[in-house]
């Protein structure tokens, strides 16, 4: 969506052997929300970003980062 926010959700999901649907349920959103965040079509709110980071027990900036920081 913004073209600047990148994420490593797919990598974290793979590490945890987790599907989009399972992650969606753990975070409390629909699967579409996770899939669109993953491909960068939807920029998540701070709340969702923090919930995802908390679920993976990782700092939020390890999952979400700006393109320039990569």
């Amino acid at each position, binding site marked *: 969506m913004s073209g600047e926010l990148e994420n490593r959700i*797919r990598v974290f*999901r*793979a590490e945890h*052997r*987790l*599907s*989009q*649907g*399972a992650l*969606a*349920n753990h975070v*409390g*959103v*629909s*699967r*579409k*929300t996770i*899939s*669109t*965040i*993953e*491909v960068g079509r*939807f920029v*998540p*709110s701070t*709340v*969702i970003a923090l919930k995802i980071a908390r679920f993976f027990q990782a700092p939020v900036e390890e999952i979400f980062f700006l393109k320039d920081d990569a």
Partner: protein
Amino acid sequence: MGTRIDMAEAVDQKLRLMALAMLLLAIRSASEACMMLVSEELAFYLDVLQIGLMVSAIGLMLHLAYWKLIKVPKHLRRLFSDPDGYIVEVLRKSCLTSWLSTLVYISFVGPVISKIWVEFPVKFFTESALFVMLGAFSLKFLSMYRGGNDPEDILDQAP
């Protein structure tokens, strides 16, 4: 856990039904507007088509309402209107597209048509405006919410 995963997926599918119901209502409005342009015999068939479309749309809405109220646990109902979810973004853009399309139609297209075909009844314009409004909303919603463009998710098959 399987049921919980199914719920996240099912919410997406059921929301598409809502947009589909609106698309059916849009087609119903278009057919109502067309009734003034066609022969009496064809108007009869359009009338039957309208009843079918209306019954289908109401059926979809009732199914969605029943599923949401009976099948979805209370704590998961917020998925339908979660302010942080993708659904709100889809609704916002769909409403904007619908509003702009209707505005353009009412401001520019409608007056031009009324100048060319002065004998057209007001009902034609109200029904065609409804068609534009509902059609633009549902098509935008379905295009943003379609499932086919999801990224490949091999882990969705994981146990």
